[in-house]
């Protein structure tokens, strides 16, 4: 057990014992019993080892503050929720206070602080669903603004990021207004589902009366199932997703593709455009399509993720020596999305999507799909250009974009005294 894990564990035990000695002691006794039982089977990880792993993961922290917000270059964890909010604030001051409070509470939750206790006759200050300590669990809260926040209500119009518009309706779309757009988008990601659920609940409580839910959708990542730790997870069409993402470790490349450049309002420096689209995938229909056709629509081998004609996921598809689409059809998804030519180099986007599943529709069909997320420097040059190319791809029969929006994720907060969006309000 590492020092950090041990500390977390002890803190937790102490709090538990303090709060109710019997329950706390019981928990420790149960853990010890599991350890003994597991010791009899040495090839399996022991209960103690498993406990240690989960504790180590829960203790991982992703800082809220920095030149860029967290949750953009951060590797996507297993769980997410996206909540679009509309502002009810009657004036700019109220909105500003709500946003300040939002950052303050988001920072506390990402840091992982003990839940504060008030007097026993007051409602608790935290719902408490994670227990007495809110473990950080790699939690990120990414706050982004929609175009409608820059309308006449709050006097922010002059500082609107240059390309921040209401998401256009693309030809493949069937947008439901109730699941589209919004003044704000909260992207909440963590390893554990309960961390995400707790964070949304706490943040909504923080801004109650000023910011109200417009739409919400939960996402999850496919598990890393190999064969190597580098292989991309799968989407709900069973194909690997994210293979051609630009490497986030390349800071110069991120400056070209993700972070906004000159020509934007000064406060926006360090920010990025976030395109969020709820793309329904008609999975029953997809499952009735022959494997050859599936692979030709995507341009990759379903099992390995290799480009057609290749053997490994990260192999170059070599369109340069396949100009007629003999190997990878000219209208295959990967070929239209990223033609890999010098002219399309600066159109690449950083995708950070999550699968979703949310019951079934009125026709008994599973409501599943992709919460598509792309971060890009210029939606016009990047996302929208790609989307236009994809408007004629054969895959469009199997998907329906039903919602989402264009948002702008401002730079991160400098430190504990700062908040996300402060630059905008100082400038406007």
């Amino acid at each position, binding site marked *: 057990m590492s020092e950090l894990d041990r500390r977390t564990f002890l803190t937790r035990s102490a709090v538990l014992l303090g709060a109710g000695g019997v329950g706390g002691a019981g928990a420790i006794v149960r853990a010890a019993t599991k350890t003994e039982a597991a010791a009899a089977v040495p090839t399996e990880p022991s209960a103690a080892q498993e406990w240690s792993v989960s504790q180590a993961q829960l203790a991982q922290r992703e800082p809220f503050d920095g030149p860029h917000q967290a949750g953009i270059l951060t590797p996507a964890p297993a769980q997410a929720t996206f909540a679009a909010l509309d502002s009810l604030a009657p004036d700019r001051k109220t909105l500003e206070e709500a946003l300040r409070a939002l950052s303050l509470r988001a920072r506390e939750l990402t840091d992982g602080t003990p839940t504060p206790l008030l007097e026993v006759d007051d409602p608790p200050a935290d719902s408490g669903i994670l227990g007495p300590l809110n473990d950080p669990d790699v939690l990120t809260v990414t706050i982004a603004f929609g175009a409608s926040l820059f309308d006449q209500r709050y006097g922010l119009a002059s500082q609107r990021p240059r390309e921040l518009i209401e998401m256009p309706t693309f030809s493949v779309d069937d*947008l439901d207004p109730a699941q589209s757009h919004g003044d704000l988008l909260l992207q909440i990601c963590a390893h554990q589902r309960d961390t995400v659920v707790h964070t949304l609940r706490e943040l909504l409580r923080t801004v109650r009366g000023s910011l109200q839910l417009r739409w919400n959708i939960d996402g999850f990542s496919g598990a890393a199932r190999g064969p190597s730790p580098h292989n991309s997870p799968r989407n709900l069409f069973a194909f690997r997703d994210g293979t051609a993402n630009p490497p986030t470790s390349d800071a110069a490349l991120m400056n070209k593709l993700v972070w906004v450049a000159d020509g934007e309002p000064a406060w926006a420096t360090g920010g990025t455009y976030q395109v969020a689209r709820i793309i329904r995938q008609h999975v029953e229909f997809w499952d*009735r399509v*022959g494997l050859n*056709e599936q692979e030709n629509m995507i341009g990759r081998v379903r099992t390995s993720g290799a480009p057609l004609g290749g053997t*490994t996921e*990260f*192999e170059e598809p070599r369109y340069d020596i396949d100009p007629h689409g*003999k190997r990878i059809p000219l209208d295959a998804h990967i070929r239209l999305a990223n033609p890999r030519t010098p002219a399309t180099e600066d159109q690449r986007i950083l995708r950070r999507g999550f699968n979703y599943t949310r019951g079934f529709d009125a026709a008994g069909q599973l409501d599943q799909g992709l919460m598509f997320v792309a971060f890009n420097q210029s939606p016009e040059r990047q996302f929208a250009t790609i989307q236009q190319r994809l408007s004629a791809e054969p895959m469009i029969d199997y998907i329906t974009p039903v919602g989402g929006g264009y948002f702008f994720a401002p730079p991160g907060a400098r430190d504990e005294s700062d908040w996300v969006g402060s630059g905008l309000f100082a400038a406007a």
Partner: protein
Amino acid sequence: MLRSITSRWTTTAAAAVCVALAAFLAVTALGVGRHHTRPTASAPYTLTPFATYEARAPHVLSSTVINSAQGAVQGAAATPPSVLPPLQASAFNGPTAQYRAYAVRQLGLMESQVRRLQNALAANDRTGAQEAWRAAYARYLRLGAVYLVGPLSTLNQAIDGNAGSLPGGTASPQFTGLHRIEYGLWTSAQPHTLLSQARLLNLNVHRLRGVVGKISIEPLEYATRAHEILEDAARDLLSGADVPWSEEGVLATNAGLQATEEVMATLRPLLTGRENTIPIVKTELATLRSVIASLAAAHGGSLPSNTQLTQAQAELLDGTLGGALEALSQVPGSLETELPPQIPQIPRRDVRIEP
């Protein structure tokens, strides 16, 4: 409906599995399997489903069947190739010609239904107009297997386009046709204000009738439509997505069923003797037809809207439609006109592996 779909050459895994299994069993019986002789697949064969599901779910294959077939064909984890001998593309000339003639007849009938709609609108008769709209809409869906692509996709959009894909939605001036009128008739618009839309619809239907008899229908597109007409019903109609105001998804599904039956009737000569597709599809479509009839009977003789279905009725219809679709999804694989081409390998010397 009537969306463009990529031309396809599909292998039906189930078919290949069964061929391979038959070969595997034959080889095993002869005792040659022990000598690692690879069997050569040969026709004929039958599907081998889980025994207890055979009547309703012939597409459900046991993992024992799949594993043994894959093992027999190419070794573990390999996907069996299609082995059904391809059909001549010209074999589709007859069926598609029949379907084109049928489509022209449907549009002729639709024109008179749109005229009835115009009369009801002129009289500001909402009930009469809704009734005429239902008839015209169901008639248009009978075209199911006609691909309206290229310049004709604009005409299709004008007749049957949805608001969701248009900037401005229902307020868009490009929002015209059946669904524009549906929007007016099932919301608060005065029926007579929709008359100009009905005139435009009539004009567009007439235009389409003039060209639909000459359009080309690719063999594989046609084979694919055997299951895609009803895929539209499951995806867009019973969910209400394409009929958000009238919720006439059951009516639309029934029209899709009729179009599918028309397609299957024209394909019967081609499908005969190829896999076990005809009897399976026939059983499933008959079940769907009787379920839809039972729904009409339960609702006073006319087809209920999506929202009038009880939960039990909705489950029955959705589930039966799903079963029919699983059966129909075997049709394209049974009607291949060419073997899937071998995909050339990416040259090894140029392979660049990224981290």
